[in-house]
C-alpha cells in the first residue's frame, strides 16, 4: 500500500442495538484490503471493545481508523464523562457498568485491559466532564 487509508465512522450512543457497527465495517474493509487474519482479529477485538465502551459509558462519539503500510491506528473519541482514575479503569475486573449493561452481556471490567493486550500501543487521554480519546496502534 503506497498511501495510507483513512476511515471515519460515527458511533451512535443512543442505540445499543447498533453498538459494534463501526467495528463490523472496519473489519470488512480490512478484509478487502487483504490484511492477514491475525492482524484483522487484533484490530477488530480492540476496536470493538472500545466502541462498546463509547456506547455504554460515553453516549457515543467517533471512530477514526488509519491504515498505513506498517500499522493500523485506531482513534476513539467521545465527549462522555471522562475517566477519573485511568490506572484503576485499566485493572481487570474494574467496572462502573450498571446492572442493565451486565444483562446485555458486558460490564465485566475486561475491555480496557483486553484492548491493551491486543494492541502494540495504547494511550488513554481523558478529562473528567469533557471526554476521552483512546489511541491504539497495531503493527503488522
Amino acid at each position, binding site marked *: 500500500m503506497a498511501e495510507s487509508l483513512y476511515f471515519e465512522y460515527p458511533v451512535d450512543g443512543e442505540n*445499543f*442495538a*447498533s*453498538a*459494534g457497527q463501526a*467495528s*463490523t465495517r472496519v*473489519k470488512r474493509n480490512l478484509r478487502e484490503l487483504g490484511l492477514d*487474519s491475525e492482524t484483522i*482479529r487484533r484490530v*477488530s*477485538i480492540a476496536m*470493538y*471493545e472500545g466502541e*462498546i465502551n463509547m456506547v455504554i459509558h460515553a453516549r457515543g462519539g467517533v471512530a477514526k481508523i488509519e491504515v498505513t503500510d506498517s500499522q493500523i491506528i485506531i482513534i476513539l473519541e467521545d465527549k462522555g464523562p471522562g475517566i477519573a482514575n485511568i490506572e484503576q479503569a485499566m485493572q481487570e475486573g474494574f467496572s462502573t457498568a450498571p446492572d442493565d449493561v*451486565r444483562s*446485555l*452481556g*458486558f*460490564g*465485566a*471490567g*475486561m*475491555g480496557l*485491559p*483486553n484492548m491493551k493486550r491486543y494492541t502494540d500501543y495504547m494511550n488513554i487521554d481523558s478529562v473528567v466532564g469533557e471526554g476521552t480519546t483512546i489511541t491504539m496502534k497495531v503493527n503488522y
Partner: protein
Amino acid sequence: MTIKDIKNLLDAEVVCGEESLDKEIHSACGSDMMSDVLAYVKNQAVLLTGLLNAQVIRTAEMMDMICVVFVRNKKPTPEMAELAAESGIVILSSPKRMYEACGILYSNGLRGEGEING
C-alpha cells in the same frame, strides 16, 4: 465434528447459513457474558449462549467464529440473522439448556481448549 453434527446432537434448527453446515469444528465455548468471550476465548469456532442481542453476532464476528448456538429455543430477530448471514456465521437455535448443550457436545468429543468463564 461438523456444524451439521452439532445441529443434530442439539436438536437444533438452522436459522441461517444452511450452506455452511459441512464446515469442521474443533472447539467451542459457552457464555452469556460477551466481555468474557472477548477476553478469554482463543480459537473457538462455536459460541453457545443464552444471551440474545446483536452484540452476540458481532462478538462472534470479531472473534472469527463461524457458528452461534442460541440455547433454550431463543430465536434471533431477522436483523440479527441478516447480520450473521452477511458475515457468513451459521445460527442454530436449540431447545437444550446451556449446561446440557455444552455437556452433549463435550461428551461427543468437542473440547474447549482455551479457558472460558461462565
